[in-house]
């Protein structure tokens, strides 16, 4: 990749500047720098590699020029752990002096750097979904164009109760915060609309065999899951193998049935219902162009990780246009970023709420086989969905963050 060579040269330059105090100050016409915190090694690399692809495709389409200024992308591999995220955030901000941080991927990485970002006052856009980042513990320098953990699952709860007419549902998800928050969102709305979650199962992150959990599912109308990473493939294989698929329809959040995972699924996933803030199936010109370029450059149908970073790129462009390409006043930049309102993006129209979290479409999709390939077909669109769904913001924030025990299982 040509970029890497440029980058290395550039980084050597800054490394020397770091050591030599008399190195000249960066010239005024310096490019805008976007730092990408991603994961390129270890188990989380799957999503991390897609993040880099999405942002790279965007910058390539724009010829690396946004609002009349050259843009430089510097990506850093956090290794998928909190300490790595902190060090790499420092690298991007203190050494490379980036104007924007895109990423990191995982919630625990984001939580490890949120205080630091706030002190450093660098606008950040992350795909990490931790609800409280834009709810009870907001960060004024943060904007999220993807979704909170619960944001997609709240409409899914509505859909499951009203359109699928399910009454009794079992949930299964990973035993950590992302799983709890997704499950809580689903449960809350599903139960408020007459449904009932009758069993909640939590699996450790590394679970080779889900059978001990799946064996406990009986006497329900459907099963909701909140898996992420490579676990959905394993889960759906085993779910179908045990004959549950023919008995109970299965649904899940966006990471469970992400478009980028479709090539890893087989027939076992056909029919699965999911709620996502992005769907490669969406018929808009921007999205078509994005999907085409992703397939052309990387041979991949993009999912949320790539789309999220592409959309973050669009937000940065729109913000720069508003500030006239200036990035010095961080306060103005983050204000401009949060004021971004786009009508044509790969996810359709969206804007931000006053916490910096996105308000936009949530698509309910069903996996179907078309021309031999699996696709997520949109079956319903919930427009303008915010993180509080239909609830009043004050009341929503007065309740605790969704957790393993909230909402509680009704007995």
């Amino acid at each position, binding site marked *: 990749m040509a970029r890497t060579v440029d980058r290395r040269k550039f980084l050597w330059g800054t490394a020397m500047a770091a050591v030599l105090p008399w190195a000249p100050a960066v010239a005024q016409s310096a490019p805008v720098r976007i730092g990408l915190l991603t994961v390129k*090694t270890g188990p989380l690399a799957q999503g991390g590699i897609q993040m880099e692809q999405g942002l790279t495709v965007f910058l390539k389409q724009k010829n690396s020029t946004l609002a009349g200024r050259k843009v430089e992308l510097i990506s850093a591999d956090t290794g998928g752990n909190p*300490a790595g995220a902190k060090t790499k955030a420092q690298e991007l901000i*203190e050494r490379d002096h980036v104007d924007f941080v895109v990423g990191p991927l995982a919630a625990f990485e984001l939580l490890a750097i949120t205080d630091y970002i706030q002190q450093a006052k660098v606008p950040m856009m992350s795909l990490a979904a931790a609800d409280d980042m834009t709810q009870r513990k907001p960060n004024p320098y943060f904007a999220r164009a993807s979704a909170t953990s619960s944001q997609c699952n709240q409409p899914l709860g509505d859909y499951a109760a009203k359109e699928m007419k399910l009454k009794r549902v079992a949930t299964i998800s990973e035993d950590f915060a992302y799983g709890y928050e997704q499950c809580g969102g689903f449960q809350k709305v599903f139960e408020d609309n007459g449904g009932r979650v009758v069993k909640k199962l939590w699996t450790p992150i590394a679970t080779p065999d889900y059978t001990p959990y799946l064996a406990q599912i009986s006497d329900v109308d459907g099963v909701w899951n909140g898996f992420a990473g490579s676990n959905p493939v394993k889960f759906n294989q085993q779910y179908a193998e045990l004959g549950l698929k023919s008995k109970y329809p299965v649904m899940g959040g966006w990471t469970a049935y992400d478009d980028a995972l479709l090539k890893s699924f087989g027939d076992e996933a056909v029919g699965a219902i999911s709620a996502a803030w992005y769907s490669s199936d969406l018929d808009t010109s921007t999205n078509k162009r994005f999907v085409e370029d992703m397939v052309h450059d990387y041979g991949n149908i993009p999912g949320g990780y790539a789309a999220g970073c592409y959309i973050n790129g669009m937000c940065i462009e729109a913000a720069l246009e508003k500030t006239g390409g200036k990035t010095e006043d961080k306060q103005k930049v983050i204000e401009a970023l949060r004021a971004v309102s786009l009508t044509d993006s790969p996810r359709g129209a969206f804007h931000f709420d006053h916490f910096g979290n996105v308000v936009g479409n949530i698509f309910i999709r069903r996996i179907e086989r078309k021309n031999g390939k699996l696709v997520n077909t949109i079956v319903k669109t919930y427009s303008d969905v915010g993180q509080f769904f239909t609830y009043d913001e004050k009341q929503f924030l007065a309740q605790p963050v969704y957790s393993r025990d909230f909402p509680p299982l009704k007995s």
Partner: protein
Amino acid sequence: MTRWVALALALLALVTVPLWIVNGYYVNIVSQILIYAVLALGLNVLVGYAGLVSLGHAGLFGVACYAAAWLVAGGWGHLPAALLALGVIIATSAVFAVLSLRATGIGFLMITLAIGQILWGLAYRWIGLTGGDNGINVPSRPAPFGLSLALSRPFYFFVLIVFLAAVAAMAVFIRSPFGASLKGTRDQPRRMTALGYNVWLIRFLAFLFSGFWSGVAGLLFCYYNQFVSPNVLALSSSAEALLMVISGGTGTLLGPIAGATLVVIMKNVASAYIERWNFLLGAIFVAIVIFMPEGLVPGSVRLWRWSWSLLRRPRAGAALRVGGGRTG
């Protein structure tokens, strides 16, 4: 004589780091190296001098980290929090030691691994205490004598002082009669027993000493990152600490420091330039085993002496000892 000059130069270099490294980011990297070096030095007490290979030291490191973070986040002052955390770490080390010292060799390794994994599991699931994978944010760094450590340079000096204390403690420890008897339990446990030494007690005390310094490193890590999550207790963290000790050279003072430097630089600096840094790090470990199986520091010393002797007496080349030194 050369030894003292080298020591003075090294000390001078360390003290002046903030002067010749202008960018705060690199000062932070050096701080990280020193923090991991303290952990590796602590682990080396067991691995190098007691012959007990622990794959659970991230557990001790992490417990100290969590204890301090939990107390400080709960409103305690930094000094009482740190003192209490050190008490917790001594107690944890004692339990750890009583359990794992039922075995030696691979058995010891497996017990420490199991305890480490159990602590990791607790950190994940005991959400009321640890916050689960959301972790605990530490609101501030300590300010000893009113001096703020918030910025990279003052914090570096703080870490440096602790690091030097750790090195001094290790140096005294190794030369002490207790250190000698610990090495005796490593090489000749039966003879030591026959001579009337309480081998178990010696190992137990060494474990406490090792655990204490691993806990100190955990405290520094907590202050450095101002965030703790189950990741610090993961098996990969324990393995990383062990790799630092072995790759640098066990049973030496400089080895663990060199190993910590290698790993921290590969993870944080080299990874900015080399996309496949993880592969390279693995390859470096393999290369170390091939070329200097006793570790970087003893291996380099051997190679240096050998090339020196070649220069002086060209025919002494046959004196190269491959695979020398104690590594097992």
